């Protein structure tokens, strides 16, 4: 009987996690480069009250036994790296990746992180940085007299300078991808860290060997669909309610059982 209470409680806990993930997705519906999360659930182990094949008489056996499931658990909360829509900004330092790949960023502590948020800025030294001021790795420094910055589909950054008809090439944005994007650890600020589950980073050039193409003057919108998330929210709420009714029913039946003795 207590099993019935506990398995219903696991159902409520799982749906709470589900709602946490959905709420975070909805909160980031307008966050550039945001990738939606998804909670995946699995049923817990089964307790065999009667083993399959237990004899029911000398002649007969129980064909399937009695197996009682113990509820549900959250197996994983994974990021889904599907493409977000590209929106035009006409800003020359906005770059959107169309396809697979990440930009490589150096954090202030010197460690590397990866991002798809291509809304770059220039700092006081002309270094290309993220909105948080984290520098690209390898870094790209734009000279102060640059008239216009061009970022090619393959990540080549070049500038036009006065008194020079030929554009000056400054460097190239490094393309990075992972065997398993879903295994990256999200650290906030649109950044991801390598983990054992993601595998080691593979570097390359944008637009080549399966890496995505860069689009200057565009940003990748969040891949969260409001309709999808709201539908998920409804199912999460109903599932939560259903499990709570399971607890109420278990409680009522216990009360009836206790009231047998007058």
């Amino acid at each position, binding site marked *: 009987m207590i099993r019935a209470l506990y398995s219903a409680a696991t159902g409520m806990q799982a749906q709470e996690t589900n709602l946490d993930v959905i709420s975070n997705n909805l909160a980031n519906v307008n966050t550039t480069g945001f990738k939606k999360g998804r909670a995946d659930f699995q049923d817990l182990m089964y307790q065999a009250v*009667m083993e*399959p094949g237990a004899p029911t008489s000398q002649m007969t056996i129980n064909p399937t036994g009695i*197996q009682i499931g113990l509820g549900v658990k959250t197996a994983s909360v994974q990021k889904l790296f599907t493409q977000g829509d590209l929106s035009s900004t006409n800003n020359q330092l906005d770059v959107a990746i169309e*396809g697979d790949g990440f930009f490589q960023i150096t954090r202030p502590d010197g460690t590397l992180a990866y991002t798809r948020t291509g809304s770059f800025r220039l700092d006081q030294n002309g270094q290309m940085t993220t909105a948080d001021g984290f520098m690209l790795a390898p870094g790209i420094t734009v000279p102060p007299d640059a008239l216009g910055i061009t970022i090619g589909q393959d990540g080549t950054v070049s500038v036009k300078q006065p008194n020079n008809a030929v554009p000056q090439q400054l460097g190239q944005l490094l393309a990075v991808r992972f065997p398993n994007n879903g295994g990256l650890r999200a650290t906030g600020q649109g950044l991801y860290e390598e983990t054992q589950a993601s595998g080691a980073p593979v570097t390359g050039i944008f637009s080549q*060997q399966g890496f995505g193409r860069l689009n200057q003057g565009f940003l990748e919108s969040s891949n969260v669909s409001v309709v999808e998330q709201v539908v998920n929210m409804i199912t999460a709420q109903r599932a939560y309610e259903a499990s709570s009714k399971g607890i109420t*029913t278990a409680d009522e039946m216990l009360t009836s059982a206790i009231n047998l003795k007058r």
Partner: protein
Amino acid sequence: MDIGTYAAASLGIVQLRKLEIQNNNLANVNTVGFKRQVLVTSPENFDDTFAKQLQGKDPYAPGDQDRVSTVNEVSTHTDFSMGAIKSTGNPLDVALRNPNDFFVVNTPQGRTYTRAGNFSLDGTGTIVTQDGMQVMGDGGPIVAQGAGVNITSDGTVRAGGFVVGRLQVVRFPETKGLQPTEGARFKIVSGPQPAPVDGYMEPRALEMSNVSAVTGMIDLITTNRAFDAYTKAAQTIDSLNQAAITQVGRRQ
């Protein structure tokens, strides 16, 4: 004691067990590939035996052997009907179209079968389940290294534009011999091994749980009221006994 008290009590216990199973179902209403469990009881045989006993007949008389053997026999049964197919857009999600088809998953406890197609990759690019168990392809686990992993409707896995393997799909002509284990996976306890078939699946979609909140609620109400009815029966018998003890033979 009156035989009716025991009958009411055992029927009540069956309802408690039913509730345990129904609550597990409800907890898994959002679990990908979950299959509903049902408790199978054999009430006719149960009633028959008690009816015989009440009529003063020997319920264990020869000739009724198999009927008697199933008295009180209850077992759990898995309802393998299809769950709703939900489109997700995620390239590593696949939903099987044929209700008797299963993916093959290697676990430390041996080979298991699942319809939960919410796959993932591990650090080496191998296709795994959400808890990291390797999913079998036609020639062993599939390593999908390269950009843009994609699964087509016949289970072919492409990575970086190349075919890297094909998801193994097996068909069970009879699903009775399958027992649930954790992770929406099933193991064979009896019956023949399944035959490999050409998979037919819906890419970028998932088969959700086949538990419906509506029938789940109706089941809860039925179980609750049935339990109430049996406790009421037990109470009625109890009050009859009480009347017998306190009133019969009282001097007027």
